[in-house]
């Protein structure tokens, strides 16, 4: 039986112990403060330090796709270790990561590499990696896995309640947010990501209202196959949200990997700001 490994970019937010257990190869993306470029590998850039710096920094940090060189290095290693490679990335519509993977695949051994645009960020992508891994264990091949993941994508939702509109607006990645005029009242957007599209669900003015809305959305989506509570430097609230969702938390017997509390990568944090709270869940189909 041929051996297959998965490589993914670091915006998947997969917990580091899961990454080790599952032998998923992660390509780091970058946060740049001015001319200083820091890899999102949990070493150069710790999350605590990042959010402190994000708030205090007068210049907006930027994010960068992984370098071609580093990606090629990781891809080559994977091709050496295995017969086939599945690459899973952030949405091509939102970042250059997919394209980097594509170029590297063409430069190495395209016939052995299957690329999948997750259409998702954070654990919305992370859950696809977990699912792909379970499918590999069932003996499915890359093509079948790709088909199945694409069929699964409509059942995945990422919701994020941002503490402020400021970061999303100035990041420029989301057209409607960039065009959002409004500085008279503080507004907390609640956004939705599905199939590469970030849309506004509603706007609220208090974090309690945002919290309640997330609970409501999760309850409407139940029963759940997998659930991740996401936060940007907002661990207390993440615990509270976890408690509030206790009743709909996926049954632990179905998979070892179906619940996580995740501190979102700085690469996404740059665009959403601190004190955000969110959910990445997979509905049962």
């Amino acid at each position, binding site marked *: 039986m041929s051996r297959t490994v998965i490589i993914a970019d670091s915006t998947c937010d997969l917990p580091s112990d899961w990454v080790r257990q599952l032998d998923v190869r992660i390509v780091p993306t970058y946060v740049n403060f001015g001319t200083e470029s820091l890899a999102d590998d949990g070493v150069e850039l710790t999350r605590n330090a990042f959010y402190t710096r994000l708030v205090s920094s007068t210049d907006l940090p930027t994010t960068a796709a992984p370098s071609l060189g580093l990606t090629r290095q990781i891809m080559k290693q994977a091709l050496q270790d295995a017969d086939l490679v599945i690459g899973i990335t952030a949405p091509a519509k939102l970042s250059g990561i997919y394209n980097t993977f594509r170029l590297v695949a063409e430069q190495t051994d395209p016939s052995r590499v299957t690329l999948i645009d997750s259409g998702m960020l954070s654990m919305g992508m992370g859950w696809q990696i977990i699912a792909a891994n379970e499918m590999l264990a069932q003996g499915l091949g890359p093509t079948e896995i790709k088909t199945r993941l694409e069929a699964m994508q409509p059942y995945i939702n990422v919701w994020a309640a941002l503490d402020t509109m400021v970061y999303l607006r100035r990041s420029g990645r989301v*057209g*409607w*947010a*960039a*065009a*959002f*005029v*409004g*500085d*008279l*009242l*503080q*507004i907390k957007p609640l956004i939705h990501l599905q199939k590469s599209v970030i849309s*506004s669900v*509603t*706007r*609220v*003015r*208090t*974090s*309690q*209202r945002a919290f309640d809305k997330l609970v409501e959305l999760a309850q409407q989506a139940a029963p759940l196959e997998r659930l991740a509570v996401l936060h940007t430097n907002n661990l207390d609230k993440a615990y509270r949200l976890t408690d509030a969702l206790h009743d709909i938390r996926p049954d632990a017997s179905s998979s070892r990997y179906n619940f996580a509390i995740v501190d979102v990568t700085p690469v996404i944090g740059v665009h959403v700001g601190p004190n955000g709270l969110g959910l990445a869940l997979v509905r049962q189909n």
Partner: protein
Amino acid sequence: MAEHSSQPKPEHIACDGHTLLRLVQVGCDWLDQHHTIVNQLNVFPVPDGDTGTNMLMTMRNAAREAQQNASNHIGQIAAAVANGAMMGSRGNSGTILSQLWQGFAHALRDQSTLNAELLVKGLRQASDTAYRGVIKPVEGTILTVAREAAEEAELAFEDTQNMVLILERVVLRAKDALSRTPEMLPILQKAGVVDSGGSGLTYIFEGMLKYVRGEAVDVTSIEVGPVEDLAFVLEPEDELGYGYDVQFILKGESLNVDVVRSAIDAMGWSTVVVGNENVIKVHVHVHDPGIPLSYGISLGAIADIVVENMQEQYHDYVRERTEQPAAFDEPETQFATAFGMELQENDVGVVAVAAGEGLARVFQQLGAAQLVMGGQTNNPSTQELLEAIQRVPTRNVILLPNNKNIFLAAEQAARLAKKQDVVVIPTRTMPQGISALLPYDPQGELQQVAAAMTEAKDHVITGEITTATRSVELDGVDVSQGQIIGLIDGKLAISGDSLEHVMRDVLETIRITEHELITLYYGVEVNQADAEALAADLREEYPEQEFELVFGGQAHYDYILSSE
């Protein structure tokens, strides 16, 4: 009275279109001369929707529209009156008044002249239409006066075909019904007033009666614009000038309201005396306030005395009415939503009523496509609301009245917007409107967007801080004129002598410590430094809560706050 009515002139037996126009004009004029009294019949001691002014604007537009119709056909004139009233209607009483005309016109629609039978039928249909026009008809209001007037007309018709006699009985019954409104509506009783809308309608009937009896009604031209002519019409009653407005409550035993009324009426003019054998509310305009006050003391104890120099009031009034707030400057971005996208025909657009320039900007930033300036004291007309709806380039429109007194005009405007589907969300305050606008999704489906917005309006508690316009005891709160008062969700809750105290009491009453964010919208009369100082004090006092200070620009209300 009897000698007039016993000798009806032949032309009073039937009535053509010209006569109806004349009746509308004199009804309007008589209301004009008394609309300030109607305005004062305000339950709440707050500056809010002036019923007299609202009804007058409605009647003016009715008369103007009818005057432009050259027909002598009564059905056509009545239709023009009804249409003019509808387009000009503002405030709840104005809107109900327009519906009375609607019903009246419907009864007359195919007729060229009016006779007693049609008059009676018209009054009945007027009343029925108005009752149907409100979701929950409340007795003790203009509706009661309209209904009893219709009932009296029916009774009178059993005795006579003479329209003058019928109208006489209608006026008497309207006055009687009006005097009983406090018995039907406890809030009127508590406030010591009769219903303002019912009073306005009674004046209209009375003006018409005066005309058919050949009595003088100071008829002024309705061609004059609405701003200047108020000053013109309010000319002093005589060379002594305006004199004083005297109000007090007389408490005693076995008081005879009718006797007190005729005694007070002999002392001055614009008399309103209502009450029962234990409590009588007296309102009269006199040159010497000592005379009615002494008379009151001779009968019992007097309380809540208000004496106002009407000469000064007159000047204030004219100044207020002629210094209209500047129309909100509508920038090019009006049609863009808050998300920067142009509204498309199939989108949902929003029209919001804003009480101040700052509030208007907030609504605009949150995505309102069209704004109508108006609020507590200047309720927009049905026509203004309709035009705003029509300016929105979408087929689906949501209208936020943001004031209880604008509901009926808003609903009327929604019905009149034939080419668009309009949903009125019953937002009672500016903060409710702002909260409702948060989940607004221009690309959503109308009913779903409306449902989300309706739910969101109740996410905030509204506080309003203003100055009492008169003394009253209401909802267990004792208020003296000129005191600072605090309202919570439209209900009088706090009174006090300093704004800071009232603000704190309001915040404590709404249990501020259970809330997260308090937004303070400061009014046009508050200076920014004072508002900032107040916000700084509150932040220090309640460190767990977040305070946001925003210029609202509303008149009369120093602060409108939302707590959530």
